[in-house]
């Protein structure tokens, strides 16, 4: 009998490994596709020659290929940072979604559920309307204000939902929804008076990774890396928290501290994503569910796999957004919602296999 148990474990391990490796390979493919495809058509060979740096020793293959400085600029300064930003934002949203769903033990939770997005939106709209051209740590005024708005909101929600010394997740969820609704109303009010800046505001809120630059990518990166590391460190705690807060405490999880850290880390990811790319829906909702269906709820695999799939998904969606009505662009939020919503409904229909909240 123990032999059979070993087999079971081995199979699970192989399954997890295969998933991660194929998602990484897929990431290379989507990245390459995204860099090659675009309004300005660049031959495949030129693109390869630009992307594969000389030190790989492969430059010999592309000797005859002509590369213009414009092509180099488009690929290295426009498309590549854009793909990077899409990957980072997609991964952040997916991981934050997984964390919120686990923390709230609620399959409907998404990265925006506790009001981070509305707070960030308010910050962004304020920045746009005041027309500030502030620069700080690589952020222009809009991302900076959005980031501050998001972080302030989650802090407010957290302290609002305190009951005595503890913060019950249900209260947190409800407070988040209430604050979110209020801030959305304020955003709508401001939008109403936006005047000639209405286009800019609306376009930002639809979400998109346009205007990406290496500076922005490198500015986001530290926040995102810190957020990811914190969250992954507590992957096991997240598993135990799925059994319920009280059980988690009985099993030795310092629930209040872990909740606070996870909440802060996930909010950091969301704030970074929203501040640079606006509100992009459904990535954080659908991706973790999809991974759960494949490998179960264990956060040790769910978190990295979700981040990879989220990155893939947003790169692909952004490529579509750039190319579908080229040379114009669609906001990527529209693509993710149009793909994500039907997919989510499909998942709901297959609820029995949702590997999460089984209705008893």
């Amino acid at each position: 009998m123990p032999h059979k148990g070993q087999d079971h474990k081995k199979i699970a391990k192989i399954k997890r490994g295969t998933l991660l490796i194929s998602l990484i390979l897929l990431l290379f493919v989507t990245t390459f596709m995204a860099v090659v495809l675009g309004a300005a058509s660049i031959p495949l060979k030129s693109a390869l020659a630009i992307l594969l740096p000389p030190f790989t020793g492969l430059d010999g293959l592309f000797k005859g290929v002509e590369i213009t400085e414009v092509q180099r600029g488009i690929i290295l300064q426009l498309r590549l940072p854009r793909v990077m930003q899409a990957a980072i934002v997609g991964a952040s949203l997916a991981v934050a979604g997984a964390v919120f769903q686990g923390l709230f033990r609620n399959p409907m939770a998404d990265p925006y559920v506790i009001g981070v997005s509305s707070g960030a939106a308010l910050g962004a709209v304020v920045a746009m309307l005041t027309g500030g051209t502030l620069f700080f740590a690589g952020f222009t005024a809009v991302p900076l204000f959005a980031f501050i708005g998001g972080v302030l909101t989650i802090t407010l929600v957290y302290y609002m939902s305190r009951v005595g010394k503890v913060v019950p997740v249900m209260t947190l969820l409800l407070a988040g929804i209430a604050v979110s609704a209020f801030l959305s109303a304020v955003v709508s009010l401001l939008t109403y008076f936006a005047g000639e800046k209405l286009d800019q505001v609306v376009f930002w809120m639809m979400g998109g990774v346009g205007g990406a630059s290496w500076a922005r990518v490198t500015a986001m990166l530290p926040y995102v890396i810190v957020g990811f590391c914190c969250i992954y460190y507590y992957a096991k705690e997240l598993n135990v928290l799925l059994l319920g807060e009280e059980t988690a405490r009985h099993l030795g999880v310092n629930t209040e501290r872990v909740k606070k850290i996870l909440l802060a880390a996930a909010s950091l990811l969301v704030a970074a994503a929203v501040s640079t790319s606006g509100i992009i829906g459904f990535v954080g909702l659908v991706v973790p569910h999809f991974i759960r269906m494949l490998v179960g709820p264990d956060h040790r695999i769910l978190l990295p796999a979700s981040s990879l799939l989220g990155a893939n998904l947003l790169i692909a969606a952004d490529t579509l957004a750039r190319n579908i009505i080229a040379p114009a662009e669609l906001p990527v939020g529209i693509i993710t919602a149009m793909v994500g919503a039907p997919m989510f409904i499909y998942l709901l229909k297959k609820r029995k296999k949702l590997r999460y909240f089984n209705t008893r």
Partner: protein
Amino acid sequence: MSLNLRVHGLSIGYDSLPILDDMNFNLQGGEMVALLGPNGAGKSTLLRCISKALEPIKGTVFFNGREAGSLSAAEIARQLAVVPQDTGVDFDFTVEEVIQMGRFPYDKGSRKNKTNNESIVNSAMEITGIFSLRHRSAATLSGGERQRMVFARALCQEPELLLLDEPTANLDIGYQWELLDIVLRLNREKRVTVIAAIHDLNLATLFFRQFILLAGGKVLASGSAEEVLTEENILASYGVQASIFRHPLHGRLQVSVGKDSMSSMQKKVRDGEKRVHVIGGGQEALSVLEALWEKGYSLSLGPVSREDSGYHFAHFFDIPVIENPPFSSISDEMCKEHLKLMQESKWIVLPPISFGEENLRNLETMAEAMAQGIPGIVFGEQAEERDFTVGKAASFLERLKGQGAFFVNDSEEALACMKNNEIHKKTD
């Protein structure tokens, strides 16, 4: 592996409304205590407070003399495990994954006991009989299986103090027994201190030697079964009349409740005019008495000794009974009394009791009453095997047959016989 627990001045409540007020008790390491009390008495609340799931309003819990508040969650989880009341499972971990989480308090610190983990998890699954289910999704388990899974997880924590909140509520009697047996073994072999909130008092007296009875936010009584399980305490805490007696098989105290409601309810529908007199006692008579009582007949009984189960039955339901002093034969006076009871009855029933020299006079009295026109029913099955009078009883039975007694094989036949003859009489 045992832990001293001290609860000092503990007041606990929700929304500052105290549920438990100024609780004080000490538990020596290796003790095994059943926590009793009615619904809402605060059993779960007390356990939750000991496990630090709930902050007390005031007071302190000490583990081995150390204040619980000064210990980290992981430190506590290495000493104390909780098996809560059944909680729903709404995630899709496998049973094994859930049980492995019992090792969580040991995982974070050092990596070296990783290999140890697997054998601990496996043995916990084997002890609780859930090994074969280990690859199933926890969400698909039945209530009993889930309870055993949670218990296995608690075992993985290698606790020195085990808190059980209604651990047997969802289990069938087989698993109830098995689970409490495991608890008992843990307590005896590893000196694990155990506190279990438990509703089934009779199950509690089988496995526990010490009791704490909660009522009205206080400890109403604590100590041995004899000290705690008294009729007054049961009435004061649970609000029901109870009869306390020793179990005839294992001698532990048993609590039987509902005497009032049972007897008063059944008195109303009982027709005093249609009384049936049952001769003799013992287990054989008891089944006949129960069947007649259930059908609404009023009864009288005799003669039986004080230790007889028939006597307890008569006492419980306030039925007229002739008491026969132990180890003595039936006196003339008793015979007279017996005859009087028979004369007042509509029927005389002779259950399948054994016959000895001592109780032959009862048969004689029955014959006398039948001669006066009271109909009799005799359970005739295997009469020879019950006859310890070298045939004397047999001749009495022959005589009763001659007097027109109905011979039946079981209670059902007896009831049918009584019913048929009533109808017959009415049509006369």
